[in-house]
């Protein structure tokens, strides 16, 4: 693993040509969507909007055509999602399905599973959540206790997941659970299941976040009976499958665009005649953003070439999260604008909201320390 993995890749012209189309679509469908709502970035939930995107062919577009996708390359998808994120479009409903669950099912699922799950994902109708974390297993994911045991009808699921984003809205959870005894090798004996969240024995309770929003949940499984074909991929290979998802999960533009709305309101609030400090800081952030985007595109090129850039993806996420988290700080530095939950300017409200959201950026999807540990391992230090 080395920094030479990062080579510059321009977005191919064919993918680039989608950009105007998305912008026009957003203008027509989201023209009056308020700035404060856009600030939610990929946490904004709107099923009707997701279905509209599905009708455009922009959900699951990298999936094969026979399942409703467009067999589009990763760059085409990149252009679509970065435009959606840059506009603050409400993409939360289908986000996980599009980014992670769809590709996972396509890669590891059986033919029957692909036929069942992928077409509704591509229509923007079927939503997924990720069940990994548990009360006693956060960074140390391999210590999970939720388990599925085989019985005549399939599998019996027991245990608890927590911090599950969108579990209250999603149709399915892809859960990582224990299916064998804890082995000498920590990473064995785990499997992934597609859990239908309407099944009896499942309780979902939203957990309010510090800003009062309800995004994540705790999910309890009490003798939930799963069909045999709820297992996705290979029994006992859950860890490897989860690791394969990470490069998709960690390198995308959502890892550095979470505060783009604030950067925009800041620039507008500063105005066209910035003083030296304002232009310097806004310029510095813009330079970083351009560089991060080029890093992220480079990982996309590696994914397109069939490589497994988990190491490079960790670099993008860590640097990207630092960048996102810096934006509210810089906003405070440049303007005497007090953050406001209610009242005040749009900028003051966006600042209040994203100041509160910022700590989560370097927690969700793997903490700063864990990412740096992965990078160090790739460098041969561990």
């Amino acid at each position, binding site marked *: 693993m080395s*920094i*030479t*993995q*990062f*080579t*510059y890749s*321009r977005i191919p012209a064919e993918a680039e040509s989608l*950009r105007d189309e998305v912008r026009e679509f957003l203008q027509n469908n989201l023209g009056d969507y308020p700035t404060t709502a856009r600030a939610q970035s990929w946490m904004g939930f709107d099923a009707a909007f997701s279905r509209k995107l599905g009708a455009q062919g922009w959900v699951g577009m990298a999936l094969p055509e026979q399942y409703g996708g467009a067999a589009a390359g990763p760059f085409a998808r990149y252009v679509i999602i*970065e435009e959606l994120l*840059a*506009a603050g479009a409400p993409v939360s409903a289908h986000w996980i399905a599009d980014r992670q669950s769809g590709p996972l099912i396509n890669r590891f699922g059986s033919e029957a599973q692909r036929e069942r799950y992928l077409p509704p994902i591509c229509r923007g109708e079927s939503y997924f959540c990720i069940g990994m974390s548990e009360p006693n297993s956060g960074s140390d994911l391999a210590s999970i206790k939720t388990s599925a045991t085989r019985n005549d009808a399939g599998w019996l699921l027991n245990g608890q997941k927590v911090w599950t984003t969108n579990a209250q809205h999603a149709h399915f959870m892809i859960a990582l659970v224990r299916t064998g005894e804890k082995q000498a090798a920590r990473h064995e004996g785990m499997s992934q299941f597609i859990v239908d969240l309407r099944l009896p024995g499942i309780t979902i309770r939203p957990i309010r976040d510090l800003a009062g929003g309800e995004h994540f949940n705790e999910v309890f499984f009490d003798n939930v009976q799963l069909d045999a074909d709820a297992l996705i991929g290979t029994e006992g290979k859950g860890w490897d499958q989860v690791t394969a998802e990470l490069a998709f999960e960690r390198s995308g533009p959502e890892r550095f665009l979470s505060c*783009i709305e604030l*950067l*925009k*309101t*800041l*620039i*507008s*609030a*500063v*105005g*066209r*005649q*910035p003083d*030296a400090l*304002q*232009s*310097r*800081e*806004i*310029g*510095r952030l*813009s*330079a*970083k*953003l*351009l*560089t*991060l*985007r*080029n*890093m992220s595109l*480079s990982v996309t090129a590696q994914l397109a070439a069939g490589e497994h850039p988990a190491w*490079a993806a960790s*670099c993008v996420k*860590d*640097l990207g999260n630092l960048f996102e988290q810096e934006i509210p700080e810089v906003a405070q530095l440049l303007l005497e604008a007090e953050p406001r939950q209610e009242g005040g300017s749009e900028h003051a409200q966006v600042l209040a909201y994203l100041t509160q959201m910022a700590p989560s950026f370097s927690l969700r999807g793997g903490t700063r*320390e864990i*990412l*740096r*540990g992965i*990078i*160090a391992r790739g*460098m*041969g*230090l*561990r």
Partner: protein
Amino acid sequence: MRELFESTIERLLADLATPEYVLGCEGGEWPAELWAAVEASGFTLAAVPESLGGAEAGWADLYVLARAAGRFAAPIPLGEALLGNWLLGKAGLEPQTGILSFAAEADLSLRDGAVVGVLRDVPWGRHAQSLVAIADRNSATPSVVLLSTESAASQTLSLNVAGEPRDSLHFTGARVLACAPLPASLSVEVLQLGGALLRSAQIAGALHALLDMTSAYASERTQFGRPIGAFQAIQQQLAVFAEQAAAAGIAAEAAFAESDTLFATFTIAAAKVSTAEAASVGAGIAHSVHGAIGFTQEYSLHLLSRRLWAWRSEFGSASLWSQRIGQMVCGAGGEGYWALLTDHANQQLCTLERKSA
């Protein structure tokens, strides 16, 4: 072309630009042997049109030359000669063999084939045989001029923090060796941009070498009965260093790749900002991980770290380029921000009044 360039220059520099040799050149010693080898390989003419005897390589390919020069801390004006000859070629002038450098900071007026004024901060100015600069920058008809160093009335010698010559040359009516109007497609800032472009690649190369050196050291040095690289605090620092080195590499490469037809001003500015920040972070971590041994003259770490400290501020600091980007961005407003970032064609930096220290 890129692969061939890279393998040839790396072999050449690995053979000749050893740490002892580089150290010996600090303070102004001219590396005649190394320069002769680089010239013999034709690298100084790489960007020159084929019709004028060059390889007509674009900046996308030239990236690896500048990066290698940084990786080996090469004490020669390789990038300077490349850029100088490239500009001569653009202006339809004969390329130069011999030691060629350029001045981005030129306050020069041209009358009847003779120049009056000063060239500041010229890399290896005292050793160069000829210099490229732009005269009459503030007029409607700026010119590309080629000057003989010998024709300077006086020189003010100066060294950067790595002991590399950065000299000023004063001209009081010297005849130019050649001159031509600056092509309309080029800005009067072309040498400032080109200098920033070159330094960003050199920083990327030096950071890569420094990262390799520092992670190797962390695996060898033992304290408390373990290699220091086994301590999580050290691992986390090295991970941050790797991220910064990767960012520097891609930022510099993007700037070269996007500049093949026209200098991509925003991308170049962003590269200088990103590489300058990475230089600061990387040099700091490298020294911290090396402990006292890295603070000695004998150990070659400082050959890289002192160059990073020098190069990050040459041809515009992170602060200067950030400010220029910021003015462009604020000019477009919050509404136009994303469109501006994603559209190379419209990213034109405005000029900035420069306050010198």
